[in-house]
Structures are given as structure tokens and as C-alpha cells.
């Protein structure tokens, strides 16, 4: 299957990746090969087969709807690239 560098660039942008031209060329070619290989699935008859998204068989356990403090704010902020001690700091989102 043909997967073009333009398609790769579009999907990469959706995934918030900004890749140089040369890498897009290479990745697009490799993805094309991989997608061609994946077309083998077309020959598998799956009519009426219920998809299996997870091997988990037990029902999702629910806990009581009670707020709990599991971590300190300082713990949560400890790995952040930039904080003011209370919040995560990021570059401005709104101009002005």
C-alpha cells in the first residue's frame, strides 16, 4: 500500500509530532510496507465475530464515590519542567 509523506505529515500533525521532510519520507515508506502486510487480515472471515478489545473478564470494580487525597500537591508538581509551586506553568495559550 502506498502511504505518502504528505499523509504521514498530516497524521503526525494530528499526533502533535513535527517531523522533518527526510524522516517523513522514510517513515512513510516503512508504514506503507507495514500496512501492506496488515492487509493479510482482509482474507480472514470475521463476519459476525464480536471484537475483543481486552482480555479482562471481570466487571469493572467501582469504589465508593468519596474524594480521597492520595498524593500531596508537591509530589504531583515534583517532576514538572516549570511550576510556581501551586500550578504547572506553560507558555501562553491566548494571545494578548
Amino acid at each position, binding site marked *: 500500500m502506498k*502511504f505518502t509523506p504528505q*499523509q*504521514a505529515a498530516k*497524521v*503526525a500533525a*494530528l*499526533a*502533535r*509530532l*513535527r*517531523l522533518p521532510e527526510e*524522516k517523513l519520507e522514510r*517513515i512513510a515508506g*516503512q*508504514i506503507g*510496507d*507495514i*500496512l501492506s*502486510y*496488515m*492487509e*493479510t*487480515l*482482509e482474507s*480472514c472471515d*470475521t463476519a459476525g*465475530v*464480536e*471484537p*475483543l*478489545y*481486552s*482480555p*479482562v473478564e*471481570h466487571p*469493572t*470494580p467501582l*469504589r465508593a464515590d468519596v474524594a480521597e487525597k492520595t*498524593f500531596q500537591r508537591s*509530589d*504531583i508538581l*515534583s*517532576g*514538572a*519542567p*516549570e511550576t510556581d509551586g501551586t500550578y*504547572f506553568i*506553560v*507558555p*501562553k*495559550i491566548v494571545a494578548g
Partner: protein
Amino acid sequence: MSDILSLSLSGLRAKLADGSVSATEAVSSCLERIADTEPAIEALLTVTGEEALNQAQAMDAAGPDASKPLWGVPVVVKDAICTKGVATTCASRILENFVPFYDATCVARLKEAGAILLGKANMDEFAMGSSTENSAFQKTRNPWNLDKVPGGSSGGSGATVAAGQCFAALGTDTGGSIRLPASFCGVTGIKPTYGRISRYGVVAYGSSLDQVGPLARTAEDCAVMLQVMSGHDAKDSTSAPREVPDFVAQTAARKDLKGLRLGLPEEYWGEGLTEEVRACCDQAVEAAKGLGAVVVPVKLPHTKYAIATYYIVAMAEASSNLARFDGVRYGFRHPEAKDLRDLYEMSRSEGFGEEVQRRIVLGTYVLSAGYYDAYYRKAAQVRRLIRQDFLDAFQACDVIVGPTSPFTAFGLGEKADDPLQMYLADIFTISLNLSGLPGLSMPVGLGKESGLPVGLQMFGKAWDEGTILGAANALSDALPQVGMPKI
């Protein structure tokens, strides 16, 4: 190498318990071995030597604790698993400076059992790879032959155990990432049933596939590790609320294979196997028969679709899981980002390696509107058929047996430029992850041509790890031991 390091984990436990070896001696022996061998194999990304020695000395001062099954045992943890206060990088630049403030549940349970953390093992970045060549930091080498890969993605874990640097290591297995390095490095590794061990604190790759498991010298050693880590965890909704059997007793109780029906799937024993792998695995099956096992042919007819199915599911889940790495809350942030979009794109473009980026693009594509049904939904349907193959096969047998890999460890760089060829290395391991079932790889000899370890795989029914551990334990006694590499 010291006498201590020639012990199995179980052998060490006995000596620690009776005081003939101290925790400090065990840790010191491992650290000396790391100093001797690490320059050649580069299995570890972090060595916590000082902390480990301090901990061992404090434990010795208090004396052995019989209530702790891993008291004083030095272990290594794959760098995809969170360790409080110790860097957890997933072998990625994007997490290079990440130091978790909590332990993954499996690590917390090891520590509660008395294990001593020696360091963090190298891996393929975000567990994406079959050779440990995709690490952003170093390429781990196979202790049996330094020109060969150790397998992946838990290649650091396989190599550290094989080289005698520790007594057990944790790996994660999304498509064979415990079993392939176990096979290539000549050690035993088990991927438990999905849900057996909590994934809380394990950096997610393919959420419906990932499982933590141990790599160690013997099946008995794996049973001890599995016992400690298993069981329900309220912090992980996919962890199973069910009783944990006594794996250690089940493993020790099996002295022969009488009454055990071994299923040999024709899809795993056909063309494509190298002669040396076939010879070692045939020899193991003959030994199993000699121990009383009955061999029956079984079929897994959808095996031919497994790789395509696996990579669609895994990449779709990966693209979703890796969205959390955005440079805001932890990890790498590009210093030149001017606005938020810049921050996301520049941080992710520089922080992730190429294999990870390729999988994100592919995963995003197969989940996108217009392609979802053709790829992801179709793969999920085939996934059910693959699982049904196993359920049907287990009507006729108790354990399914086949080679772990069609070949022994391949050369460094040999498949690095061809992702599809690299993916095909997982051909015998990935069906199990799609099905959520347990599987183990054990060494069954050295290949006649390569001189490298060959692994045999045993698949069990869901929640039946005890049977495959016991079978591997009994079978290993009837096979020539591969020993340890001379490094």
C-alpha cells in the same frame, strides 16, 4: 565469579535464611559482578549501589526475617516500571529526567517481601522493539556473544540475569518482551495471565496487552517472584480480583510430567525454524515424553494473522497512551517552545525516538475516522478468533509447547533498518498477549551452530501459571543445563 553468584535465587534464599550468606555479601557480590561485566554488556541504565548496600547492612543488623520471602535478594527492575526516588526513563529522552515519587505496585510488593533494588534495566524505548537496540541511551549486548542482541524489549533484564549481575529481574511483556530475551539470553521468564499482576505504576504501551513478569535462572525462581507480585490491586481496574494459588508449592510438587498432555501446534513446528532451534526443541519434547507427558497435535489456525493483528492493536493503544507525554507535567520540555502547540510538538518531536514516532503515526492512522473499521475493529475481531484457537486447543491438551523464537539471537544491527523484519521476530510470542494467557520461556540447550541459547515456550490456560511453572521445573531437570555465559 563468586560462589554466591552461582546460586539460584532459591539457593540464595536458603543461605540468607540460615545466615550463611549475609544480605551485604549478596549485594556486594552483585555489585562486583556489575563492575566487571557492565562495560561489555551495558544492561543497566541506573545502578543504585550505595542505597542497596545501605539497605543490606540495615537488614543484616536486624537479622533475617522469615516472613519475607525475598529477604536480602538483589533484584533489577526494567526501566518501564516506576521506582520511588529512582529514575524511570523507559529508555527515552522524553523521560530522561523523570524520577517517580511512588513505586509501582509490583515494586512495592517486592520491597515488602524484602527484595533489594540494585538498579534499572535497559530496554527498547517505551518497550517498542525486539532487540534493545531502540534504547535512546545504549545498546545492550548478549552476554553469550557480544556481537548479538539480547532480545527485546526487556533485553537489559535478560542480560543482567544471564550475566549473573542479579538473581532476578522484572520485565514487561506486550508481545513477547519477557519471553524473547529469556530465550536469547538462556534464562527463564514468564508472562502471567493478563490481570494477574497489577499494572499500576508500569508505563503503559499497549494497555490490553502489557503484563509484568520475572526473568530468573529457573522456573522455581520465577515462581517465588510471581508469588510475591500477584494479586488484586484496587489501583488497577484490570487487575483480577481472584485468589492467588501457591505457585511455589505447585512448582516444587511437579517431579515428572505423568498425565500431562502437551499440545504441539503445527503452525509453530513447520517451516521457518532454524535447524538448531528445531533440534533443541525436539530434544526437549522427547525428554518430556520420557517424563511421562503425552504429546498431542493441536491447531492454531489464525496464527498467520497474529502479527498484523498485534501491531494494529499495539500501535493504536500506544498512540493513545503516549499522548500523555506533552512536556507539561513531567519529562522533557523543549526550551524554545513559544506557545502551547509548539510545546507539545517540539517536546514530542525531540523527546521520542524514531521507532516510537513511527508507531504513534501508524497508531493514529489506524484509529482515524474512515480507517478505524478497516484496521482496529477488524484486528479486534481477529483477536477474538486467535483467542478462540487457544480455547479450542486447550480442550485437547493441558499445555501448548513450541519454540519461543524461530532462531537464536541475531546480530546487532541486522534487523535495525527494517521494522517489519524486526516485528516478525515476535511471531511465536504475540498470540499469547492478544489472548491474555500465561506463557513461559525456558532454556533447552545451546544451538549447535551458533552456540547460543535456545528457548522453549509453554503456554497455559488462563490463571494456570502453576502448571507451566511445574512442567518447566520438571523438564529442566531432564535437560542439559545451559549454565552461564563466560564473560
